[in-house]
């Protein structure tokens, strides 16, 4: 089955820390892969625990399908499956960009860090400190050998004012080249931490609003599905 780990567990692997109680994966919603996912779900003795039903059309529309495992050893663990995420390209692209980790003899395919950061730009308060930690951790791990691609990733995604100012001052050309994409870099380049904080907050607010807008029709659909699900059968 082709799927990528995302959510809190992926955050832990990259260097943030989230006490996540579920396993979130993104997967390709083609017939063959969903057949394999169905087999995996059965192996985990996982029951679907909420709407929508486990159907391709809901995954393709951007919904998440939620399961709870009953297999001893994985008992109680929630599994949330998505195949479309706001701001991210098709699964095939995500798959090509994935990170693969090996731990305890197991291979784990994880959403790439830049993709995980985009996936975390949601309407929820708790996701924003996570983005800060994810990019900070990457900076702490790679500052000694950062190439232009890495520096540009930091300039696009850092949310820690002091580090952003540091990167902007040490890489002025890269910073200048991204000003049109992220105007708040002008405050980083000028070393103005106060203005940068305000601009970062505005940037976050705009993303949160965009996420609410993206989810509005999906939430209506979920509410409709819940009503149908709860309606007593005649």
């Amino acid at each position: 089955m082709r799927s990528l780990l995302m959510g809190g567990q992926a955050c832990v692997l990259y260097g943030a820390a989230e006490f996540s109680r579920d396993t979130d994966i993104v997967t390709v919603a083609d017939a063959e892969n969903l057949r394999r996912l169905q087999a995996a779900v059965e192996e985990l003795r996982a029951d679907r625990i909420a709407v929508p039903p486990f159907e391709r059309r809901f995954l393709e529309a951007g919904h998440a399908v939620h399961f709870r495992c009953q297999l001893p050893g994985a008992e109680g663990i929630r599994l949330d499956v998505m195949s479309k995420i706001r701001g991210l390209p098709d699964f095939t692209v995500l798959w090509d960009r994935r990170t693969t980790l090996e731990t305890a003899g197991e291979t784990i395919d994880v959403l790439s860090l830049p993709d995980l950061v985009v996936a975390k730009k949601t309407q929820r308060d708790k996701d924003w400190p996570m983005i800060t930690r994810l990019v900070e951790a990457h900076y702490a791990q790679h500052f000694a050998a950062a190439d232009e691609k890495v520096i540009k990733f930091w300039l696009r995604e850092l949310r820690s004012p002091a580090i952003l100012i540091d990167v902007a001052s040490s890489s002025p050309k890269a910073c200048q080249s991204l000003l049109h994409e992220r105007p708040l870099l002008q405050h980083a380049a000028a070393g103005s931490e106060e203005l940068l904080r305000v601009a970062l907050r505005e940037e976050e607010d705009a993303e949160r609003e965009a996420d609410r807008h993206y989810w509005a029709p999906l939430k209506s659909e979920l509410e409709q599905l819940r009503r149908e699900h709860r309606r007593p059968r005649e």
Partner: protein
Amino acid sequence: MIDMRLLVGEEWAEWYSMTPAQRLEESSKLWQTYLELGGTLDPEPDPQSPFYDPEEWRAFTAHGRAGVRLVRRGGI
């Protein structure tokens, strides 16, 4: 280069410096402790999540939940 220990504190700087496998292991230890203390895998209510269903939470809390329970409340 910024000194990460000064910026984020010793604990975070140490966490950042671990390998993914080390973080996974440390995280697993925390989980084990949490579950041994009676913690539950049930999700926390998250009204900001697009998946949040208030009806589901009303039904859930009406039945109570296993796991950690308060036996003595300390003063403030």
